[in-house]
């Protein structure tokens, strides 16, 4: 290191005044580390400012669509971007394109339903994986499995989406959906899982693809939490004759219970906000509530990403997207805040950051 910068004298050039070397007061200012301090302050403020800026922009942009649609925005099931070649019409005192209607209920429900399926499938698998990694596997094998878990978290969502659209979706349509639909017991509350098995684009595929994406986040967090459970209570449980399963259920998991809920919320935040993978497998059925588990549906983010080219020319359409964005942002922010509070309460350590790809 020192050899490569021979011009810097070992004593820092103490023999000469700084003014001669770097240019007077500026030199002193630079040498005192002031630029770094200011850069640091700026860097620290930027994330905060970005969030505030995004929030304000969304709120301001969303106002016209909210005024136009009112509660229908949340309760309506029809979504129409309107006809750009029709004569503009006036309703609620606002001039807009003819036919324009914004009812986001299918999208909001679609977002929540895919997230629910992802959690129902993903959470048991993730917690089971975390338990096995910490308690059953030999240290070396556990490290390898843990490494793959973290690699899975890093798979770009478009890759998962491609896999879902080209391989997994058709597999579900041909092999899983018919079996489910035909063999489920004839209970009325399972009616939602029967009927037309669709073509692989829809609620079930979206939920399962999301499950794959949130699994590593929940599992990695749960693993770190379970690692933090002291050995004594567990040994005590085993000494009392509890089986491994009983120890896990009655000692280990309750010990980190709040943190686990936090980990689940972290996965929830990811699932709610996930865009591209879901847009590729959900079927983008604008304005239709899924009729069953296999039907094409739509989520908030899928609508925005697939239809921005239609919306971009009309201010009211853009405003409706801003309103959708606001709903999505509030949902994900809530999930993340709750997650962070709960996990920190248990572990006191930083979280493995949920990747917002």
């Amino acid at each position: 290191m020192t050899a490569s910068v021979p011009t810097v004298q070992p004593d820092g050039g103490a023999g000469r005044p700084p003014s001669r070397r770097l240019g007077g007061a500026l030199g002193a200012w630079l040498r005192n580390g002031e630029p770094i301090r200011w850069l640091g302050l700026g860097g620290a403020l930027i994330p905060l400012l970005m969030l505030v800026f995004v929030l304000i922009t969304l709120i301001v942009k969303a106002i016209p669509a909210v005024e136009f649609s009112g509660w229908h925005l949340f309760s309506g099931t029809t979504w129409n971007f309107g006809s750009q070649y029709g004569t503009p019409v006036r309703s609620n005192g606002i001039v807009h394109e003819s036919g324009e209607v914004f009812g986001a209920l299918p999208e909001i429900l679609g977002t929540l339903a895919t997230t629910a399926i992802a959690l129902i499938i993903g959470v048991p698998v993730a917690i089971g994986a975390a338990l096995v990694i910490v308690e059953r596997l030999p240290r070396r094998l556990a490290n390898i499995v843990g490494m793959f878990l973290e690699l899975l978290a890093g798979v770009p969502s478009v890759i998962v989406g491609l896999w879902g659209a080209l391989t997994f979706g058709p597999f579900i349509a041909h092999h899983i959906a018919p079996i489910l639909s035909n063999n489920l017991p004839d209970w009325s509350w399972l009616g939602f899982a029967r009927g037309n098995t669709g073509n692989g684009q829809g609620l079930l595929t979206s939920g399962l693809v999301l499950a794959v994406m949130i699994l590593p986040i929940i599992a990695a967090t749960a693993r770190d939490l379970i690692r933090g459970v002291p050995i004594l209570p567990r040994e005590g449980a085993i000494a009392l004759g509890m089986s491994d399963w009983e120890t896990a259920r009655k000692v280990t998991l309750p010990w980190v219970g709040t943190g686990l809920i936090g980990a689940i919320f972290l996965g929830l935040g990811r699932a709610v906000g996930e865009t591209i993978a879901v847009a590729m497998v959900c079927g983008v059925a604008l304005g239709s509530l899924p009729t069953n588990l296999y039907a094409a549906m739509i989520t908030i983010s899928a609508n925005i990403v697939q239809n921005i080219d239609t919306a971009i020319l009309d201010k009211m359409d853009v405003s409706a997207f801003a309103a959708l964005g606001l709903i999505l942002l509030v949902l994900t922010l809530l999930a993340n805040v709750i997650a962070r509070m709960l996990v920190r309460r248990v572990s006191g350590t930083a979280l493995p950051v949920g990747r917002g790809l």
Partner: protein
Amino acid sequence: MAKKIRLMYTAAALVPLTVLAAACGSSSPAKSSSGTSAPPASASGKSISETGSTLLFPLFGSWQNAYSAANTSVTITSGSTGSGTGIADAANGLVNIGASDAYLSSSDMTQYPNLINIPLTVAAVMVNYNVPTVKKPINLNGTVLAQIYTGKITKWNDSAIAALNKGVTLPSIPIVTLHRADSSGSTFLFTSYLSAQDPSAWSASNVGTTITWPSAPGALAETGSGGMVSGCGATKGCIAYIGISYLAKTQAASLGEASLANKAGSFTQATPAAITAALGSFPAVPASGGESLINTSAAAGYPIINYEYAVVDKKQASAAEATAVKAFLNWIITNGDSSTYLTAVGFEPLPSGTSSVSTSLINSISG
């Protein structure tokens, strides 16, 4: 030691500043020497940017290559973003040319009074299907297509389809409708045709680049024209609407192309002759350049064709930019609008009347 580290940090912080200063400093000498050697494009203003229609994009790419090869001082960038984005980018001054499958609406014109739409070439949208047992083109009209896309007709051997195809043995396989998942000019043209043919079967309010599709059983949403081709190729019994530039790909995927009914009631495929015949049936294009070419009344004409437009701001940022854009657009409607470039994508050149409207629109661009 601490001092040394601090010095290193300061140096590191200064590096970007130095680079920035160097970059700023170097731009002025480049400008002064531009007369002698080949100048950087940005400095001389000979850089043209385009975004927009995915249907036009392959053709625009071949125009771009040929024009840049002949005019080495001009740099052209293009992007396949979708027509809506192209128009918005042109309106906001982000690009020189926004390519669009659809002409500007009157509300676009009032909102952006400086925007003009210049017809560049003629494209078409096909209706394709995957029914391997039928070798002859299947005849379809707007009413039947609307009933297929609303889920009222679900089998290929439905009596309504059979009535249009006397003497053809249609298989009893389910119809799977494919539609675009993303915003698309093809969707706009296809739904325009359905509504023009039978407004009672397909409402005029359900025409657009993104529409609310009725829930036909098994309906598939595909992203991009490529997705339509591969999705249809993989799905027996499918039906899809696909831009003519994908003709070769639909043939490679063994998809059939339907003969569509026009206003005169005869059935045609999107051949060059049928497109030209359809063009002849419409009144001369207005001075604004915007005209719908759906549902021709010519018996030999193909019913789903459209002008591909360059949407341009009449008032370009500088005189140099205006000159470069005008030269390029003029080249497109003269040299570019010929079989050399059009045959590969199945497009047709502008009729001479439209071509002269385009020329006067191009000449209205200034700096």
